[in-house]
């Protein structure tokens, strides 16, 4: 039941509340059938941007095109979108069936057809037995299913999700996440999903759009964003625990001074001699051992045991706190001195300004 897929295009889209710009001139092309996740810290404008695409928020400047059609000044109902809200936003005084049918009724769809579509949506989401209940009689997960059902029956070109799983408990969140992924596979619609939860972003997205302060910091596949962050912000935001950032000074060619320790890397460092540079290494790319060359001395502050892995938090001589991931091996005790080595191929370089520098 693959629907026709629609592109979404944002051209120089800007939004201001009075003198404050919350979205700065922003361009983005979402391909038909793509699952794009907007991710960023709270207040970064991701929900506002989604609401602008939905037509619930006016656009100060720029154009929004859905399926090639300029919808910038159209009502939400005429844009071919459906939206799922964080708080479900079901109509509390209507039964589940009435909730699903409301949009179709307004569109003056014949009653028999409404019934058929509602039943079909209920079938897809397995909410058939709930159709005569009120939202107040449903659990959180069931409510969110109904909210998704309300979106499905409208047969939209584009689905918009505004943090749909934030109100659910952890277990339910995992199963609903899988459900949404299944829905995307089955329906094939273009979907935009807003979240601050990076697990959701990584698992669901074809492409992730990382936003900060109303600007796009990076657009890319989950893998690209994780492995090649465009700047320090993305490096720190994507990945948990976050990427370790160590300040260093480039000595020459492939040598760098970190604190009082000199490290020689295999590849040349993309920086001039005596230039300050930041090195980013993810927790899983470190190994700890005894005194050795090309390693950073560190003292263990504390360790977190998570079952299959262990996070050891160590303090470098420079004062930077480094988190390393360990699987098996002897347990690190607080106060213990370790020598840390990193997987040299996994080292990312950032200029002092925060921009990524490509190593060769």
């Amino acid at each position: 039941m693959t629907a026709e897929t629609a592109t979404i295009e944002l051209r120089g889209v800007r939004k201001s509340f009075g003198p404050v710009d919350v979205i700065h001139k922003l361009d983005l092309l979402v391909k038909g059938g793509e699952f794009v996740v907007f991710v960023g810290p709270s207040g970064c404008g991701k929900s506002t941007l989604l609401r602008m695409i939905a037509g619930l928020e006016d656009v100060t400047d720029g154009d929004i095109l859905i399926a090639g059609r300029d919808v910038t000044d159209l009502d939400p109902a005429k844009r071919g979108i459906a939206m799922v809200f964080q708080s479900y936003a079901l109509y509390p005084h209507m039964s589940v069936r009435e909730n699903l049918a409301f949009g179709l009724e307004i569109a003056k769809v014949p009653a028999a057809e409404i019934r058929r579509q509602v039943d079909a949506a209920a079938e897809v989401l397995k909410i058939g037995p709930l159709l005569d209940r009120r939202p107040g009689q449903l659990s959180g997960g069931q409510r969110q299913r109904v909210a998704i059902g309300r979106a499905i029956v409208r047969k939209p070109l584009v689905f918009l999700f505004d943090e749909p799983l934030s109100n659910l408990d952890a277990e339910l969140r995992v199963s609903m996440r899988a459900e949404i992924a299944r829905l995307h596979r089955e329906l094939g619609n273009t979907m935009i999903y807003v979240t601050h939860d990076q697990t959701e972003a990584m698992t669901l997205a074809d492409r992730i759009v990382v936003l900060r302060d109303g600007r796009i910091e990076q657009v890319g596949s989950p893998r690209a964003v994780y492995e090649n962050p465009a700047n320090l912000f993305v490096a720190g935001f994507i990945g948990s625990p976050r990427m370790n950032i160590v300040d260093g000074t480039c000595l020459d060619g492939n040598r760098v001074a970190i604190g009082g320790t000199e490290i020689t890397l295999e590849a040349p460092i993309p920086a001039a001699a005596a230039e300050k540079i930041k090195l980013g290494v993810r927790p899983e790319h470190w190994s700890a051992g005894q005194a050795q060359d090309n390693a950073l001395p560190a003292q263990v502050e504390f360790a977190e045991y998570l079952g299959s892995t262990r996070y050891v938090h160590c303090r470098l001589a420079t004062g930077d706190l480094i988190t390393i991931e360990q699987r098996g091996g002897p347990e690190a005790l607080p106060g213990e001195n370790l020598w840390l080595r990193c997987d040299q191929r996994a080292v990312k370089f950032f200029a002092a300004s925060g921009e990524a520098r490509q190593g060769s």
Partner: protein
Amino acid sequence: MSRKAAATRRRAWAATRYHVIGLVTSLLFIAPIAWSMLVSFKSTTEAARPPLPPWPVEGFTTQSYENLAQYGVGIWTYAGNSLSVAAATVVVTVFISLLAGYGFSRFQFPLKNALFVLIISTVMIPFQSILTPLFLILTRLGLQNTLPGIVLIYVTLHLPFSIFMMRNAFDAVPKEIEDAARVDGASVFLMLRRVMLPLVLPGVATVAIFAFLASWNEFLAALILLTDQRKYTLPVMMAAVRSGQFGTIDWGAVQSGVMLMMAPCLGLFLLLQRYYIRGLTAGAVK
């Protein structure tokens, strides 16, 4: 064992205390109503005698009610006036405050808060102090001594509180529900009718009860603005009954009038009390 017995005794004593206090308090509240009701069933002559015992000793009779029914141009004219004034006041007040409350709650416009404060601040003006200008305005409009005129006065008096109530009621409805309705394609008025109205019904019930009770019982404005006896509302008529004819007061008729005036208020309140409590506390806690 003895500790258990002591605890049982303590609980029994607490329950007794609770019920006795409750009983006494409710008796205090019910007594005047019961008294009125009992007197209203006494005969005219018995009702004029010293009031003890409060119940009719010469047998129950509806004579007082019959007397009241024939008072002036007939009780049903007055009751009809009162009922139509109160009903019209409720309808107009609810309609205006619903739209105004929605506007104040959801739309952004210049001087919104100033306007709202202005409306609310009119509550501080005792309306008795502006009765003369109101009288003059109604006269100028040709509405003096008409029921629509008095309805307009009542609506004006109730609007500040009603708008305040309705704004609170709308504020308590999450904005996302409205967004969802917009995505579903509802126009502003359709959304108001099908989505918002059912959600602010407790507020509407509260506004309706207040408007009804206040206009049903209002005396001063009705007395001053209505001069034609056929247009009197019940409170004005009751004042005439109470002041008596040819120096005699028919106490039985007075009490039956009290009963008559109370009935619709009680009925309405019982009908809407479920919403009324919710309406007053809406938005107080999440």
